């Protein structure tokens, strides 16, 4: 697949005096893409530019080979959009709403209706699809928003903070839905989030933004490789004592939340159990650290906010 999915060419978008995006140049191929950055980093602006809802102040974009400024309708026929904020029509039933959005996207009435049933069943709203949207909970609303974004079977879906406001279970389910859709193949996703763990194991490419500037972009595997392997330990018991004892053995630890991170020479875990045995600590978790997108983001954001990674 050589066809580019998205391409931005030194795109800058300014609102009055605020530069929401600065000189952004990326090229992404089809797949599942994580658009990651803190709030206000320009994620929503980028999505709106891709939809042709905003015009770039300078630079140019292409979505599925088309310029969203010049051919907005052709682009939007190929793209599904799930906005971050609440945007539903409370007076419609779930199925009525999704079918309606399908028809506005150009589906004939019958097709729209049968697809609305299908996608609502898929997002887990089979039972509630005839109820009015105003009675839906936060999680159900989020699912309806996803359903309306995929009802017209677009090859590209832009999902803006799909896990926003959901509890862990709801988040897992929402991400599970996206994973299931992307496994089907043939469809690309851009998933924007400020919760970095959301993207783990789900996306194959990332685009990291901070304050409107590109931190890094490209395949996850490439970005995550290239660091000394660490081991993660979780200890129950006298943690400071454990750390001190380990340090006496010449192994330095880094504390991250409730976890300890160490670099073990040649991956030998024995010192850990020895120290645990001495200090009476329990080894509740032991395993190699997987370098996460969160680590990557934090280290890149600290290192050089202005520098564009390869």
């Amino acid at each position: 697949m050589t066809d580019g999915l998205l391409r931005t060419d030194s795109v800058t978008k300014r609102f009055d005096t605020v530069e929401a995006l600065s000189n952004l140049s990326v090229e992404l191929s089809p797949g599942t893409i994580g658009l990651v950055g803190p709030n206000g980093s320009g994620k929503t602006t980028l999505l709106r530019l891709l939809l042709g809802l905003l015009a770039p102040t300078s630079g140019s974009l292409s979505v599925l080979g088309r310029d969203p400024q010049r051919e907005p309708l052709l682009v939007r026929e190929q793209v599904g959009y799930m906005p971050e904020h609440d945007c539903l029509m409370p007076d419609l039933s779930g199925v009525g709403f999704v079918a309606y959005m399908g028809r506005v996207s150009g589906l004939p009435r019958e097709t729209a209706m049968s697809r609305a049933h299908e996608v609502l069943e898929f997002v887990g709203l089979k039972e509630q699809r005839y109820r009015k949207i105003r009675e839906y909970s936060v999680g159900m609303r989020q699912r309806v928003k996803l359903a309306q974004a995929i009802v017209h079977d677009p090859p590209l879906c832009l999902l803006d903070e799909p896990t926003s406001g959901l509890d862990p279970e709801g988040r897992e389910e929402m991400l599970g839905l996206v994973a299931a859709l992307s496994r089907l193949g043939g469809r690309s996703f851009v998933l924007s989030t400020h919760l970095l763990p959301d993207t783990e194991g789900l996306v194959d490419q990332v685009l990291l933004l901070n304050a409107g500037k590109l931190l890094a972009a490209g395949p996850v595997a490439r970005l995550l490789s290239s660091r000394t392997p660490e081991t993660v330990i979780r200890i129950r018991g006298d943690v400071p004592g454990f750390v001190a004892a380990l340090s006496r053995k010449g192994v330095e630890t880094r504390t991250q939340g409730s976890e300890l991170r160490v670099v073990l020479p040649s991956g030998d875990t024995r010192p850990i159990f020895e120290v645990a045995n001495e200090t009476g600590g329990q080894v509740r978790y032991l395993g190699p650290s997987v370098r996460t997108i969160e680590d990557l983001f934090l280290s890149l954001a600290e290192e050089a906010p202005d520098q564009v990674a390869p």
Partner: protein
Amino acid sequence: MSISAPRYGAAPVAKTGRIHRALTIAHREFNRRSGVGTVAVVTLTYLAITLVLTINTSFASLTGTVTLATFETPYSSPAWPFLMLIVATSVGAGGLAEDVGNRSITLYLSRPIRLIDYLAAKSAATGTWLVIAAVGPGLAGLAVVLVLGWAPSSLVLTGAGAFVATGLLACIFFTGLALALSSLTTRALYAGVAIFGVVLSLEIGAPLVSGITGNTSVAYASPINDLLSVAQSAFGISGPYATDPATSAVVLALSGVFFAVFAGWRMSRVEVVGE
């Protein structure tokens, strides 16, 4: 939760065109307005206008003096402007305001339609309701008159033409006004207050000014005055209205279009915000 992915039917379907998409929006907007309130107001309009029309025609037919002017009687009642205002408020005030208020405007704009399609659809829905309320009752009354044989069919036909002409004009003006005021707020009822306030102020102010100053062109500023002037002329009455009916008609139509364009301008700026 079991996950079974959507299959999306068998073959890719042929997409419908923009007109069809706009019609879908119009249809939904029309249905959304068919709540109890609107239906009650429109029913009231039908009852009031149809009754006044048939009762007056029946009296006139007793004395054998049914003319085109007889059919104009509903417009002479002070209730008529109020009815039009209430209908315009209940079918038009929410059109854009509610979509901006619950932010579903974002969904419309992210679909393969243009803003103009969306606005045209909204106008069509509001306009259809207004036509139903402004043209329908007159025609219904005339149908009764025709069935009961109180007036010759040629006269009834001319009367019908007059109702259609004035009703369409009222529809153009109030649709534009409702859209414009609806685009200024996120709450339908504020738009409703504004519709009442603007039209009633003009209705009181314009004749006053033109009466005192003798400057008849000021009277064109009152839409109700314009509508009544057009109606009287359409029904063949050389009435008390000092305005030229043709000019009044042009003023109404142009201001309706102007308001609609203004609404479009407002909506085109609604979404242009940062995160």
